Each structure stands twice: as structure tokens, then as C-alpha cells.
């Protein structure tokens, strides 16, 4: 569905386009909150801005909503430069982290507000409010005050309020940040399903990588006011383009080493040899690792690490020998903590009931498919 949607829209012009946008709060000398942003949001997609706190996600959203002005660059909505348009004339729906419902109005009045402002006649207003409330499954709550609702319900009302006037795009700034884990997961599916059923374009901000992977058609990973990678969740997870993305999205084993060879092979088989600091030479897919002799980091996902209760020498030339330090039960999987000879440590994940488990303390061998080992320049 995702690939299809993007295929359909590749030709059309993007709904939103950031062109060389920079933003400094106060004097430029004190630094840019957004360094240089070139970003297209396609019609109908759910694009997530993911990044640590302070990386410029909210700023980007507020620039589009019109609550902040770019210091440089242009922002186009449907091909039109919206620099001079005040927020209330942009027609963009926004869901705020604090909900920001109007406490003196009933739930129905909250949702109806944008329609009232647009002069929609009363009967139609009531119809559309009812439809919006039923979309978030709160149709019987119209008469209540926001304060009489739970956090999750308030969040859904905020969603209904942002969608009811059928904006071309809805912006959501960490909308689930204040909810507990179970409710957050339920709401993620609800937002995803709303997005798919209504074909809504959404721009979603979160610092939770799991949430981003669950929800998004595409994810833009932010760091220090820049986009470090923009890709669909699967690609982002399996082919991170730099060490920051590899470290921020999902879990990774990071093994320092030195590049030993130029890349060999083509496409999926392209690989370099890396001498790990422990003394073993391994193959890895070069991402932005430097020339032979330069320092690098090999990143391997725990679920890609194979563990066998045989000696490394019997397993193959790329296998490392390790001592099983600890087995941690985590419900749906177990984690194996493995000490390499030089003090480095590798974590492996295994499904529960996945065959015999070696005893802690035994010598085992550790290996992985070089296609899932990524070599990054060190310090990136």
C-alpha cells in the first residue's frame, strides 16, 4: 500500500515543500534550530519527523503551521508560497501535545469551532461534528466538557477537531507523549487507521523510534536541525545511512575497528574487510566508512547475530569466539549478553523456544551475514 501510494504520487507535485529553510530564534550567531531543510511531503502520506529532543522537529512543524517564520528559504503548500500567510489563513490542522482543548466549551463545541469560524450553517455543522466524533469513536461524548474525559479521549477529540474541516494536511506534535504505554500503542493503530481510511496527509513528530516505525510511510530522522536520513521505516531500519541513524533507530551492536580493504563486489554483495579491535577480521557492508587504514564502527542488529554452541574455528572464518555472559528472559524473546575477548560485548536476540540454550559461562561462537553488518566512519 505504501509503495503503491508513493508510486502514484511520484509524478504529481508535492503537497508541501520546504526549500532551503533555515530558522534561527533570535540572532543567527546563536545558532539555527533548523539548519537547512529541503523536504517534500507527498499527498496522502504519513511522514514522521523523528529525532532526539531539541533536534528541531517542533520548529519544523511550527514553521509549516505558521507560528514561526523561517529566517531563510521558502515553504510551499500546494505549490503556493505561504510565507506571508498568517496561521489562521493556512487551513492546516494541528494537534498539540498538550491537547489545548477549549475547557469552557463542550466537546461538540470544540470540534465545531473550526466550522463555526468558517461560517458553516448549523445543521451541516452538527452533521460533520457527529461524523468526526464517530470517526474517533466518541460520538456519545459531545455534551461533555473536556475536563470530564480521560487523556486518551481528550487526545482523540483534539484529533477530531483538527480533521473536521478537512484540511489538506494535519500536523501532530508528539500527540501521544502524555499517554501511558498501552494507550499509546492503541492510539498509534487508531491514527494509522484514520490516516489510511481517510487518505489524510499527516506530518507527525515523535522522539519515539518504535512509534515512528509503527506509524509512518516515511521517516525523516533529525539531528541538530538537519535531516540525517529520509526513508520508509524498513529501509531506515535495515539500511541506515550513517552511524547516527543506525544508533537512534532500533538497537545496534557497535564494534570499533579499522578498515582493511577497498570495497569489493557489487550491489548487495559489496563489502569491505574490517579488522575489529579484538583481532578478528570481518566482512561488512560499507556505508560511509573511509579508506583502508581509517577507523570505523561495524553495527549489527541483535536479531541478526547468530550464536552457536561450537567453537568459532569450526564455524567459519568470519565467526568470533565469545563467552556467554548472561541470558535475560524478556517475555517474547531472550537476550544473550556475549563477551568478546577484548572486553567488548555483543547482544543477541533469540525467540523464546528457539532450540537449546547454552549455559552462561560456556564458550560459543558468534557470526552474522555481512549484508546486515554496516560499516560507518568512526565518530559519526
Amino acid at each position, binding site marked *: 500500500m505504501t509503495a503503491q501510494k508513493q508510486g502514484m504520487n511520484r509524478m504529481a507535485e508535492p503537497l508541501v515543500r520546504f526549500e532551503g529553510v533555515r530558522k534561527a530564534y533570535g540572532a543567527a550567531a546563536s545558532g539555527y534550530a533548523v539548519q537547512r531543510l529541503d523536504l517534500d511531503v507527498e499527498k496522502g502520506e504519513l511522514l514522521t519527523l523523528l529525532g532526539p529532543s531539541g533536534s528541531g522537529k517542533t520548529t519544523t512543524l511550527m514553521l509549516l503551521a505558521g507560528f514561526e517564520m523561517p529566517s531563510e528559504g521558502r515553504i510551499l503548500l500546494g505549490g503556493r508560497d505561504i510565507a506571508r500567510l498568517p496561521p489562521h489563513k493556512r487551513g492546516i490542522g494541528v494537534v498539540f501535545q498538550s491537547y489545548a482543548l477549549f475547557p*469552557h466549551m463542550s466537546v461538540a463545541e470544540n470540534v465545531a*469551532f473550526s466550522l463555526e*469560524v468558517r461560517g458553516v450553517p448549523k445543521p451541516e455543522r452538527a452533521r460533520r461534528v457527529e461524523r468526526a466524533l464517530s470517526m474517533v469513536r466518541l460520538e456519545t461524548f459531545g455534551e461533555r466538557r473536556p475536563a470530564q474525559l480521560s487523556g486518551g479521549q481528550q487526545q482523540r477529540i483534539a484529533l477530531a*477537531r483538527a480533521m473536521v*474541516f478537512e484540511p489538506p494536511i494535519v500536523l501532530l506534535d508528539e500527540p501521544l507523549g502524555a499517554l501511558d504505554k498501552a494507550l499509546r500503542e492503541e492510539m498509534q493503530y487508531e491514527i494509522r487507521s484514520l490516516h489510511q481510511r481517510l487518505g489524510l496527509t499527516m506530518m507527525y513528530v515523535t522522539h519515539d523510534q518504535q512509534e515512528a516505525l509503527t506509524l509512518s510511510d516515511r521517516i525523516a530522522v533529525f539531528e541538530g536541525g538537519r535531516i540525517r536520513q529520509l526513508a520508509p521505516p524498513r529501509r531506515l531500519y535495515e539500511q541506515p545511512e550513517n552511524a547516527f541513524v543506525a544508533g537512534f533507530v532500533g538497537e545496534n551492536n557497535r564494534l570499533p575497528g579499522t578498515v582493511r580493504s577497498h570495497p569489493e563486489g557489487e550491489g548487495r554483495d559489496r563489502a569491505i574487510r574490517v579488522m575489529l579491535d579484538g583481532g578478528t577480521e570481518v566482512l561488512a557492508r560499507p556505508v560511509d566508512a573511509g579508506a583502508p587504514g581509517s577507523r570505523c564502527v561495524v553495527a549489527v542488529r541483535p536479531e541478526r547475530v547468530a550464536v552457536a554452541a561450537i567453537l568459532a574455528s569450526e564455524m567459519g572464518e568470519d565467526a568470533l569466539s565469545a563467552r556467554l555472559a548472561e541470558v535475560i528472559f524478556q517475555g517474547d524473546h531472550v537476550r544473550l549478553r556475549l563477551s568478546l575477548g577484548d572486553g567488548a560485548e555483543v547482544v543477541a536476540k533469540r525467540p523464546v523456544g528457539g532450540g537449546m540454550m547454552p549455559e552462561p559461562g560456556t564458550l560459543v561462537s558468534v557470526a552474522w551475514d555481512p549484508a546486515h553488518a554496516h560499516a560507518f566512519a568512526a565518530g559519526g
Partner: protein
Amino acid sequence: MSPDPALPRIPARLAGAEPGGAPPPAPPPAPPSAPPPVAARARPAPRPGRILLWTFGLLAILFLLAPVLAVLPLSFSAGSFLHYPLPGLSLRWYADFWNSDFWLPALWNSLRVGAGAALLAGALGTLAAFGLWRGRFRGQAVVMAVLLAPMVVPAIIVAVALLLFFGPLGLTNSFTGLILGHAALGAPFVVVTVLAALQQFDPVQLRAAAACGASPLRAFWRVCLPQIMPGVAAGAVFAFATSLDEVAVALFIAGPAQRTLPRQMFSGLNDSISLTIMAAAMVLVLISGLLLLAVTLLRRAR
């Protein structure tokens, strides 16, 4: 009634946060805003601290009210002299007040001027407070100081200034002039109560309103104002009360047609002391009491 409301605190960033700006005048010392704590019912023997607190509180109230309480019964005197014991009880001075060409028009004038001043101060004070709360600009503390100045500058100085300023504009001897003057005196109370109300208001709601398509004006009217209304109303009541007992400006600005109740009492004292003035005082106290009750109810509604 002297309107010394339990003033809500002025936000720190406004109260002289600006370096180099003129220090804003401190609001007049406010009496402790909390009512004396109600002693817990279940407790058999209240602690000594509590007894002390109550004693002190009651003494303070007595000190404030004693003069009023001592004088007001004279308005019910059947005699015509300012002394105790009363020769008998009667309502003759109230009847006199009600039928007098000297007092009754003054009462209406007071109410008209008070209402006009309260409305004007309420509207302008609310806008000023909203601007100070919303904006970030140089000289904010100075603006704040100027707005609150009438609260601390002696009334006589304001009165002289207004007389000199209004004279050439033809605003002396007019209701307009008197209402403008009293509105200036009452506006600081509105600024303070509205700023306090705004502290409870989440500014993100204004962004939410804009995202719903509401212009700034509409967002203020439909989203902000309804939520700060108790503060606006309380401020307007204080402004009304300020106007009601104001003498200095009334003496300087009001012509014969605009004489207010306090101003008549002032001249009534000079001429001959008739006990009708006690009835007039009672009327003022009554109105003030009602205003105080209104403010209390507004507080509770919040």
C-alpha cells in the same frame, strides 16, 4: 468602601523584571488574601497558634470596622444631634435622603459615573493586561508602571493633572470627563485581576484557535475572554467601588450637574451637620457591601 482587594500577585516578569526600566510602583499593601482558616471541627482543643491567629484577625477587623460601626447607628436616630445615647429610633433621615434634591440626584450620579467608569476601565484594562501578557517588547515594565500608577499616586495629584488637562478640552464639568478620570483610577485594578486570570490561561489555546481558522480577534473573543471573564468582572467591580468613594477628582472635575454622593457629603459637612449625611453614608456602605459580596461570588465561580 476603600477598595483594597486582596490583590492577585503581579507576574514577576512584569513587576520590574526589566533592567534599567523605572521600578514599577508596588501595589498597595494587600491584606492577607486568604480568609481566616476555618478551625477543624473535630479538633477538641485548638492549638495556641490558632487562637492567636484568630484573636489577631478579629482585632484587625474590629480596628477597621469600629469607626463605621460607631457612627452608623446615628442614622437611625430620632433626634437631630450627633451624639449617644440615641433619643429614639426612626427612619426620618432616610426619608429625608429619599426626598432630598441635594442627595438623591447625587446617588444617581454616583451610580451612573461608577457604571460608566467600570465599563470603560474593564474594557481598556482587559486589553492592556492581554497586551502585556501576550507581548514581549522593550519597556514592558515601564508600561506596566504607568498603567498601575493611579493606584499609588495620591488622588489629589491625579485630580489636579486631570483638571489642567481636561480644561482646554472642555471636559471639565462633564460626565465624560468624570467617567474618564474615574476609569483611569479604576483601570489598574482591572489590569491586575485580569493578569492574574491570564496566569491560569494556557496560551497554546490561542494557537489551537488559529489552527482552527480563527483570527486573533476571534480567538481572543471566543476562546480567551470567556475564560478570564471572572477576572474582568472582579476588576470592573473594584473600578466601580473606586469611583463610588472617590472625592478628589469629583471635587475638581464635576460641575453642579455631576455631583456625586461622596462629594455632596463633603460639602454637606461644611454647611450644617444634618443627620441625613449618616443615612447617605449608610447607603454607600450598603452598596460597597454588595460589591464585596459580588467579588467574593466571582472568586468562588473561578
